[in-house]
Structure formats: structure tokens, C-alpha cells
């Protein structure tokens, strides 16, 4: 059984499901998907990108110059897609443990 993904890594992988993105676009997408809850700094983001690349979950593209800025797009590998899907299922089943019971639970008055 693979170990759970950390929250920033989970959202970075989730941000790349729709297609390859470069660093700044990943930052924005992570912010959108987490509704502003996860906003990694640039140094933290690149640390996560390097670690996920070393684990084979991401594949970096070639460096390009776009509008005078250096860019490199990162894309999800098959292993990365499997890891983020497994993590989503784990979170879903963990959430179900609570949500299925709280609906029927009687809350005692304070």
C-alpha cells in the first residue's frame, strides 16, 4: 500500500490532470482547486515538483522561452495519475466513514 500524499503534492498532481502546466500556472490552479486553502510558495512548489519527478509521478518537459520568460511544462505520468486517483479514493472512503453516520446521528442539546 502506497503512503498517503501530502496535501500540496495531492493538489499539484490534481492540477495536472487536465494537461501539462508550467510553474506559475500550477500555482494558480492549485489555489483554485483548493479554494485558496493551499497556496505554496514558489520554493515549496519547485521542491514538490522535484520530489514528485524523482518518484516518477511527474514528467518535466523541455525548457522554453515564452514572452521572454523561461518556462517548463510538467505533465502527469501514468503512475502520477494512479497515485492521485488512489489518494482521492482513500480520502473519499475516509470521508464516508463520517458523512454516512453524521446524517443519522442524534445530536444532544448543549
Amino acid at each position, binding site marked *: 500500500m502506497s503512503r498517503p500524499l501530502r496535501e500540496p503534492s495531492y493538489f499539484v498532481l490534481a492540477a495536472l490532470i487536465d494537461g501539462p502546466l*508550467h*510553474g*506559475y500556472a500550477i*500555482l494558480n490552479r492549485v489555489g483554485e482547486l483548493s479554494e485558496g486553502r493551499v497556496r*505554496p*510558495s*514558489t*520554493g*515549496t*512548489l*519547485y*521542491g514538490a515538483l*522535484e*520530489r514528485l519527478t*524523482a518518484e516518477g509521478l511527474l514528467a518535466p518537459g523541455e*525548457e522554453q522561452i515564452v514572452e521572454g*520568460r*523561461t*518556462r*517548463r511544462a510538467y505533465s502527469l505520468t501514468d503512475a502520477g495519475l494512479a497515485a492521485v486517483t488512489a489518494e482521492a479514493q482513500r480520502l473519499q472512503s475516509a470521508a464516508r466513514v463520517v458523512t454516512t453516520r453524521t446524517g443519522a446521528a442524534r445530536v444532544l442539546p448543549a
Partner: protein
Amino acid sequence: MSADRLYQLLLRTYPRDYAAVHGGELLATLEQSSGGRIRVREVTGLLVGSVRQRWLQDRLRQPRATVTSAVWPAVLVLLGFDFMFNVASALHMLPSPSGPSAILQSWVVPASMLPSLLLFALALLGHPRPALLFALASYLLPLVRDAGAFSWSDLTPVVSLHALTLAALAITTVRRKSFSAGSWGWLLPPALLGFLATMPSPVAGIALGTALALLAIVAVCEARFALALVPLCFAMACSYLTQWWTHDSYPGSNFVALCAAIAAGVGLVFLLRAGLVLKPRQSAASK
């Protein structure tokens, strides 16, 4: 200082090969995410990111590569310390400007630090063979010259700092690997520390404490830097121990013994830190 300049400086704390590959895209992303301003979270993120990147590379590096890549930093640390010590000694011995021989001595005394300056510069430029030959001459000639008036205390630097420096230089010469030249700016830290060491105690203490803290951070970041600091720690311990052994009746002998114990203890901690990285890699490779 502009935000771009600060971020570029902080990027230099990353491993050189990582910065070469990802530096451009990282700075471009920073420019957009920070809006061209200095942001504390970005500065913190870069510093933490550089430490994490060094840890990551430390785990990926082969144990043999860790050990061999520690030799050249060890040479620079030993020679840098020798240079710092000579700067402090030369400045301490400077005569008062009103003395009759002031003009002559003000030139002669600082000249005593020139050999260590030249050695450190040769090492910085990546020339181990000339540095080894020059070190042999500059370390051994005074011993031959003063052979008649031999005392155990004369051997203190020889058995510790100089012997380790010669050994490290010999290893780098035998390996015949070309070493990339360092920046001339690396001459400044030991020179500045040597100068600050002659200041009154609060200034000298703060400078020494800051330098030790920075060395500890560097040693924590990468096992090869921890290994590179071990010879200096043991050289200092050996030097203090010899002082304590040869002058055990003078009033400060307890303090000298304490310094020897601290230096040896720090050396052991650095050795343990390097060993923690080397050992799991060896066991993983054997699986």
C-alpha cells in the same frame, strides 16, 4: 536591493546543478507570483527549498561519491581556517604607529600571512599540485630552520592542522581530478573573521558564534560538508589537547581542555551526521 536581485542571490543557496537546470523557470515563476516585490513567504520558501533540495540530493548520491566529494571542501576549510588564523595573528602583532620601527614592521608583520593567503588562493583556483608543493615548503621549512630549539609545542600545528591539510592536498593531487575554480569572494569570509577576532570580546564572540552557526547549517544540509568539517574539528581538538598537555600548569588550562572536548564533540557529531546518510545507502545498495 531589488526583489529580482535578492531572489537571484537566494537561488545560489541551491545545489549548483539544480540551479543550472531549474534556475531560469524558478525565477520566472517567482517574478510573477511575487509581483516583483520582496515577500517573506517567498524568501522563506526559497531557503527551505534549498535545504530540502540538498537533502534530496544527499540521499541520491552514492556513498563513495559523498566521501570523495568531501575532500576538496575539507582542503578549502582547513586552508581557510589557517588563513583566518594568520590574519588574526598578523593584525594582533601590528605595532603602534608611533614606534621607531613602525614603518618597517607594519610591512613585515602582515607579510607573515602571505603564504597562507597564497595557499588558500591556489586552492580556490583549483590547483592542488602547486598548493601541495607550496604547503610542504611553507610548513616544513620553519621546522628545519628552528630544529635546534625544538619543543613539543612547535609540533602542535604540524601534527594537527598542517598534517591534515597536506594529507587532503595529497589525496586531491593523486586523484588528478580537475577542480572548478571558486569565486575570489571566498577570500573575504576568513579575512573578515580574522579581523573580527582581534576586536573586543562581544564583537569577536558574535562573529565566531555566527560563523559556527553557519557551518552547522551547512553541515546539516549535506553529509559531504559535514564530513569536510570533521578534519578541522579534530585538528582544533588536537591543537587544544597539545596545548593543555604541554602547559598544564597555567591558569587557563581547564578552559583549553574544555575547548578540546567541545571541538572533538562537534567533530563526532558531524561524523555521525555523515554516517547516518552513508549507512542506509550502503544497506539499500546491498539489497
